[in-house]
């Protein structure tokens, strides 16, 4: 019973939050609602016994991602109200509704999942974090390491893209200009 109440409550809350996120014209509202929605989602994780995931959700999303977005917002100065031209809302909502209805139609039927044996079953008596640790560092070691590489890539990308070096485009400069620039630099170095 508790589970049901919690489910419906958080379901309502997440839906509401995300609805605000996609509909509001205030970027700040959207960001706040998104953050709230993500925290509510972590509640589901806790309900479902995925404690580690819930923690990660809060840390990574509400912490890291939201902080990044907040920085971005400040940088882009999007606090002012946004005017979005939207030609056909009907199409947008229509498509989404159709998609939702279709999937719900399929999902409304019970999934034939009875005879499924868990490949990595949860062990009684072990905490969720422990279990995840074991699976992550055995079976999912390679994806994990690759995820590390991915984060590195993201980092390098972020640095490169946001870096000062991008302000001057060698692509758009003619070769003569580049030569002059290099000479200038050398002069600076020498002097």
């Amino acid at each position, binding site marked *: 019973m508790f589970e049901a109440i919690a489910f419906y409550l958080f379901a309502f809350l997440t839906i509401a939050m995300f609805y605000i996120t996609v509909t509001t014209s205030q970027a700040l509202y959207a960001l706040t609602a998104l953050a709230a929605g993500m925290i509510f989602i972590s509640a589901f994780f806790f309900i479902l016994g995925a404690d580690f995931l819930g923690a990660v959700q809060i840390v990574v999303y509400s912490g890291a991602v939201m902080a990044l977005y907040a920085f971005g917002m400040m940088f882009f100065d999007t606090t002012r109200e946004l005017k979005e031209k939207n030609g056909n809302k009907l199409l947008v909502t229509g498509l*989404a509704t159709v998609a939702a209805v279709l999937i719900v139609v399929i999902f409304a039927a019970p999934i034939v999942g009875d005879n499924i044996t868990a490949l990595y079953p949860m062990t009684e008596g072990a905490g969720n974090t422990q279990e995840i640790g074991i699976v992550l560092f055995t079976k999912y070691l390679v994806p994990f390491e690759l995820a590390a590489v991915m984060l590195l890539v993201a980092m390098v990308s972020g640095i490169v893209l946001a870096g000062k070096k991008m302000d001057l485009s060698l692509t758009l400069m003619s070769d003569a200009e580049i030569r002059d620039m290099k000479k200038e630099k050398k002069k600076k170095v020498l002097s």
Partner: protein
Amino acid sequence: MEIGLNHYLVLSTILFSIGLVGVMRRKNLLMLFFATEILLNSVNIAFAAISHYYGDLTGQMFAFFVIAIAASEVAVGLGLLVVWHKRHNAIDLDLMSTMKG
């Protein structure tokens, strides 16, 4: 009333659809990125739920990696936005259609 897997899946689907709405109607790139986060998060709920009902950890692993991916995407996406904003002082995607046809 028992909350079954289907409840979670339906919820996930609804959230996913909300995400789709966001993706389609947002013209501000930053807020568009928010919508993509919604997409990934909605799937995470489903993964966690399936994982729970099957008693299998794989779903949680997937959700974990999805979170990692979402985080990396944010970094790169924001990087791109920064570059664009530096040049054009705007992040409205309607202004971004020099190439077409």
